[in-house]
């Protein structure tokens, strides 16, 4: 670092602040995102609209256009991404986890599954998934649950909780406590035993597993990367996740995932109907 004579006056403080230019951190966005590296085959840097490494314990929120693909990579095998989705135009419409599992007659996410809104529309499609361990049931950690496990769960401390992280991500779009709805957890999985018990799939997992979502509506996505609420470890273990989004076409009428089930097709019909204007 450059040494500074003083930060006692504005010019000195300016010089001190500007000396940070070019500094790197593990968790940071790529700007402009067209400079993002290691893109999927066939994706041009010019189409990338967001590239960011989100810290373990961190969060991000972003508006994504219809057709945008969002890839999340569990870089080091310990990511746990809690996800909220809103219709960006009218955020009273949001992801409905109960409808997502009920309408599709299945508890587990896999490629082709839709993330459904509470208005009967497809908000997003899970188009790729090399992880296969996700959770629609256990939701976000909160200040109290992190306090019991780690001693504290404050955002300003070493053990941020997922609920408060989601709240901050939502707040950046003017949303509040009433908007932090039930979430999906990606990369740490929960399976349901015959007696109803929740069985955590906590790893260890290989590095670099990823999921790709396709936005079927103009959405606000909120991501919180915090240890799973059922993670039994007393240490706060969570590693960085990379989010990369790029432009893509709106789902065509012959898309196999659009047409894979009668319920899903009706969700797409409702979405397409919404965009008639």
């Amino acid at each position, binding site marked *: 670092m450059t040494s500074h004579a003083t930060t006692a006056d504005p010019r000195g403080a300016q010089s001190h602040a500007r000396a940070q230019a070019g500094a790197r951190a593990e968790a940071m966005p790529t700007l402009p995102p067209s400079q993002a590296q290691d893109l999927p085959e066939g994706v041009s840097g010019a189409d990338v609209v967001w590239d960011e490494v989100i810290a373990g314990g961190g969060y991000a929120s972003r508006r994504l256009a219809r057709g945008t693909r969002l890839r999340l990579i569990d870089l080091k095998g310990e990511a746990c991404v809690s996800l909220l989705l809103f219709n960006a135009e009218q955020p009273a419409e949001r992801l409905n986890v109960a409808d997502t599992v009920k309408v599709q007659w299945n508890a587990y996410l896999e490629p082709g599954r839709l993330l459904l809104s509470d208005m009967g529309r497809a908000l997003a499609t899970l188009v790729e998934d090399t992880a296969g361990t996700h959770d629609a049931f*256990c939701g976000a950690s*909160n200040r109290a649950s992190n306090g019991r496990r780690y001693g504290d769960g404050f955002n300003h401390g070493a053990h941020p909780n997922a609920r408060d992280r989601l709240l901050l991500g939502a707040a950046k779009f003017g949303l509040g406590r009433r908007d*932090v709805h039930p979430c999906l957890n990606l990369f740490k999985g929960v399976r*349901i035993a015959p007696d*109803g018990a929740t069985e955590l799939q906590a790893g260890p997992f290989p590095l670099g597993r990823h999921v790709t979502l396709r936005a079927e509506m103009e959405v606000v996505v909120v991501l919180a990367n915090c240890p799973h609420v059922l993670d039994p470890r007393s240490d706060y273990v969570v590693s960085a996740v990379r989010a990369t989004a790029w432009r893509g076409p709106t789902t065509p009428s012959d898309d196999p995932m659009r047409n894979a089930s009668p319920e899903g097709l009706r969700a797409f019909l409702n979405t397409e109907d919404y965009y008639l204007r």
Partner: protein
Amino acid sequence: MSIDAPTLDGAILHDEIVAARAPWIRRIATGQTLRIVDLEGNQAVDFLIYNAHDDAERYSAQDTIAAQANIYLRQGAVLRSNEGAPMMTVTATAVAWHDTIGGACSVESNTLRYGHHTKSQHACVENFLLASAAEGRTKRDIVSNINWFMNVPVEADGTLGIVDGISAPGLFVDLRAEMDVIAVISNCPQINNPCNGFDPTPVRVIIAG
């Protein structure tokens, strides 16, 4: 069939029949018990609760499931808020388990599950919205709910669905308030799946304490 329910402690403060297909909303003070009786059997009772003093704190199916590490609500289950606090406890029930993963039926989800010909049918979210609107709450306040007397098994491959119920006429659930709450019921009007035996019926609600 005998209800075989324990005697409720304290005075009976309220006793009402909730008509088939109707909403219901009521404040319940800390320590009071709400009893819901499935009068005719296998009548899903969709249920939400809010902290009476801060209604941005409300029932959270996910926090409830995570804290008990089980998706089913059985006797002893603690119903938790989105901030992890106990809101009510299932102090007694004659039904082996109840559902909290299936959510509420809505006009919109009915179009997905059954087809667009159901769009004019009444649904639980309509009841929740109208009941809560009277107190200033809106669609943003509708979250994943409880379905008393409803049966949603999850098979090994994840297949799940609302199937024939395990309740019967006169069976009940007792809920003790652990904080001052606003309880909202939608006496489910669904006629396209077995949650009400394809025939919505009245339920009885009793508050004691």
